[in-house]
């Protein structure tokens, strides 16, 4: 599997409320909340770190989960968030991704 890179879409609004991320899509003002795994993924999605590294460094250390399974789940999650315009996904590092 080739590496995937994820970056937060800078056009969405986001705030952590008690550990849960509130997200308002800039595309159609739809509101989402992210669960803990999705919040970790969102916070780590700087466009430069690959999804694989995010899973190894942030998700597997937080939850007791097999790396392969975690990566598969994270990829599904990332594609789902991308379909709502919340994340950008690419097979290359994403230049100008939201690095905060």
């Amino acid at each position, binding site marked *: 599997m080739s590496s995937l890179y994820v970056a937060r879409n800078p*056009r969405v*609004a986001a705030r952590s409320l008690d550990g849960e991320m509130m997200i308002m899509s800039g595309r159609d003002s739809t*509101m989402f*909340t992210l669960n803990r795994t999705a919040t970790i993924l969102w916070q780590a999605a700087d466009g430069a770190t690959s999804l694989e590294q995010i899973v190894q460094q942030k998700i597997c250390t937080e939850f007791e989960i097999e790396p392969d399974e975690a990566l598969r789940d994270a990829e599904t999650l990332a594609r789902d968030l991308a379909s709502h315009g919340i994340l950008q996904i690419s097979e290359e590092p994403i230049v100008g991704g939201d690095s905060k």
Partner: protein
Amino acid sequence: MNGLLEQMTEKALARNIPLSVQLDLTYRCNERCVHCYLDHEDHGEMTTAEIKHLLDEMADAGVFILTLSGGEIFLRKDFFEILEYARLERQFCVKLKTNAIMIHERQAAKIRDVGVESIQISIYSHRPEVHDAITLVPGSLQRSLDAARFLKSQGVRVIFANVLMVQNLQDYQGVRKLAEELGVECTLDPTITPMMDGDRSVLSLGVDQTALRQVFRDQALVGDVEEFCTIAAPADENALSALPCSAGHTACYVSPYGDVFPCVQFPLPTGNVRKERFVDIWRYSERMNEVRSIRLKDLTTCTSCSHVGSCTRCPGLAFMEGNMRGPSSQDCEKSFARTGIPSANMLAKKRASRDLVQIRIMPANSAQPTGAIA
């Protein structure tokens, strides 16, 4: 309210988080609306650096929805710098309120790029002679509508805000039609706000009972008229423990000078962000906590009113009348227009005015009056 936002609001309430803040960037304006309650002189607005610092503090305090308003926000030369900071650096969900007459294609494209939740534009009438006579700026309706088109063509969500008053009473349907044609949303507000210093003279521009009754019986506005105008069941224990509104609970207002109030329509000063941290004012201001402590059951006149369960009573308007636990006469008028039943406040005032003209006949041979003319 959208279900998820409602859940988040409940969570914010439980954690004492100011989820939503209106920040007025300036009171200066390029229109001179006849009903406007603001002093348009600049008495020392916050600088760009002060506003950015405040935005940092607000983001750290958990503020998510940020409404940038004024005065006219586009009169600030640093407006886009502030907007970009709020959106791209601090990820606020930003709503804008403006008369839009300074928005052309370039500004509309910039607003689209930055990404705002919505932009609310004040439109008083579909007829230039009426709208422009309210704003006192010739050509302003045309300019506001051009801006709405530019924004719409960029895919920005536009909402027309129509304040109803004597001058434009017959035009709200025209404004709604115009909004439909342009594919934008429309809100109607029949409440004129008194000046922040308590001057109530602008209230005379507000619409009367007959007009309110007409508005409240317009199906296009209120949906099921019968349901809307029905008298609500008496409020039970649960309802009486309810919060009056979001002011001071999950929302507050900050003026261009850094003063913090529970709401833009509730001018009770609770602190200044130039002197204290925003979050400290929010959490520890005695006045903010007093507002926060009030439940419906603590209200003086309203608890004995048949409308209490369904009334739109605004504690800010009540405060401007002299008592934040008292009734708000403008909401009494609305409840009366809806149902035809006078409010407890109206009945009490009627009694008081009867008492004031109490003249009793003196016994023919008495030296002392037994009654009084107050």
